[in-house]
């Protein structure tokens, strides 16, 4: 499987590649809710149709925390494309999130 560093340089790949995002939360907290809302909004804007979001509640599945080395809540993990990236916090800063996930804003390019 080819590793895609930057979908912008390889637009054809973006069709095949699905962004697998995982959001770790711990119960229904304000921060988690904010983070999820923010994430959904960014993905709709920049990765429409190319992403999946998996929300993991560690209160329900605490054993999953170890696998992705989760310390902070909420943590957003980009599993695919590799390499793994993590963004912690309520994702309130859009620019930082996009840089962190290595997503180049579509609006600016088109």
């Amino acid at each position, binding site marked *: 499987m080819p590793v895609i560093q930057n979908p912008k340089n390889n637009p054809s790949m973006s069709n095949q590649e699905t962004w697998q995002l995982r959001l*770790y939360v*711990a119960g229904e907290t304000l*921060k988690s809710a*904010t*983070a999820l809302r923010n994430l959904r909004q960014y993905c709709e804007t920049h990765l429409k149709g190319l992403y999946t979001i998996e929300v993991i509640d*560690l*209160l329900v599945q*605490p*054993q999953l*925390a*170890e696998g992705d*080395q*989760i*310390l*902070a*809540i*909420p*943590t957003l993990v980009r599993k695919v494309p590799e*390499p*793994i*990236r*993590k*963004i*912690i*916090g*309520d*994702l*309130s*800063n859009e620019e*930082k*999130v996009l*840089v*962190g996930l290595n997503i180049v804003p579509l609006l600016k390019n088109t």
Partner: protein
Amino acid sequence: MAVKTKITQPKPKALQKSLTGVSGFDEITFGGLPAGRPSLICGEAGSGKTLFAMEFLVHGAMEFNEPGVFVAFEEKANELAINVSSLGFDVNKLVAQNKLRIDYIHIDRSEIEETGEYDLEGLFIRLGHAIDSIGAKRVVLDTIENLFSGLDNKAILRAELRRLFQWLKEKKVTALITGEKGEGTLTREGLEEYVSDCVIVLDHRVANQISTRRLRIIKYRGSVHGTNEYPFLIDNDGISVLPVTSLKLQGKVLTDRVGTGIVTLDAMLGGKGIYRGSSMLVTGTAGTGKTSIATSFANETCKKNERCLYFAFEESADQVVRNMLSIGLDLNKHIKKGLLLFHAARPTMYGLEMHLVQITKLIREFKPQTVVIDPITNLVTVGSQTEVQSILNRLLDYLQVSGITAVFTGLTPTGNAGDQNDETVASLVDTWIHVKDIEMNGERNRGLYIMKSRGIKHSNQVREFIITDNGLVLQDVYLGAEGVLTGSAREAHKLQLEAERQMQQETIGKNERELKRKEKELELKIQALKAEFETLKDNLTATYNDEASRKKISDSKNQDLLRYRSETVAGNSKPKK
């Protein structure tokens, strides 16, 4: 009233403690770490924090039935297992038995981006899960400060750490948090602010190019604890802390005596040697046979089927064994039997305190009846005078409390016993023997004195100390008009005396013979005189007899004559009547 209640109250609420199993540490804390509370252990890199923490968990899991969780922020689980396996801890086995759990928490700054508010609930959940999965009673966080290098938001971190320690308390686990020493603070991030129940500092100091590890308990809420710096040792069995400064003068006293292995020396010591459990110091200048005295003591101990531990700080074990063969002591057979154990080390190998830790540790393991330290003065090279004295004081106390007979040798720079620098040692020991060089007539001989021997009637005389092929001998020195005679001078004196005695004997013989001859002569004379006398007597008797017979004859003749005469007269005139 208020005071009264205060005095009576604390007892039922006494702080629960959790034994660490770290040798010596539980003694100085009177029971270990505060149970159900977090404790902080801090120190520089390489001071033994992680090891201490691991020992705490392993002993807990193996000996006290308290499973533990090790949260590693620095080393991976398998690295950690390998690192401590050298100490004989089989971490993997404990993990398989669910007695131990190692959680490696990795924070890679490069793959983490921070945006907005967050908390460390994930860490709490992981920890909680780990604790619950094995029912852990002990938790180690090593080193939690790594979080600070991985995450930017210090304010959040500090708040979360405070919450974490509170949470650990609520979880009722005994937690040990390690922290790296910071500039001017105990830990780099000031963890001591949060963990305030018990703070332990490990130190690694270098003095005279020798490093010594030390441990100190800075605070321990709700408990008495030793406040000193205690040296500790990390060796094959992990950490041993030495809690000896608390020793008091209350050792038990033994009254039976042990021989020194030199019959003549025993004779000087009231005929029976020194008390068991007492200490003997043998001092002397180089080459006076101190080691020989010490080894013959060791030999004597082993001959009685008792164990002897021999610390050689100058020679290796093989060297001592070989050298002692020359005076007829076969130490090898004792070594083979396991009665004699040599521990040879360079004094500079580690600090003085470390030596003490090492010595006490070996004594605990080997349980000897006699300990020989040869020489004790070599230790001075690694410490100052006062240090040496305090260490020896502690060592002697330890030995006495354990009822172990101790023999030390000490090198004195000058021949004078009075002004030597190990006087300090000498005041501590019970028996002090000094071997002195006596230089005379172009040769050097050894004179042995007993400087003191507490509670034992001992000889005040100087004896000549002779090392022969068959062991050590003490001989009376000659005290004559010429002063003290030793060595060949003494032999010469002996010969001279012998010659004089022989000459005297000859003279006596001659006189005796003369007397006998005289006696014979006189006897002969007496016989001659007797013979003369006999002849004379015979002659005289003969003369006397002649005279008598002649008289007889003449008497009878006269009778005849008379008769004749009267007959003629009667014829003439008729009888008169």
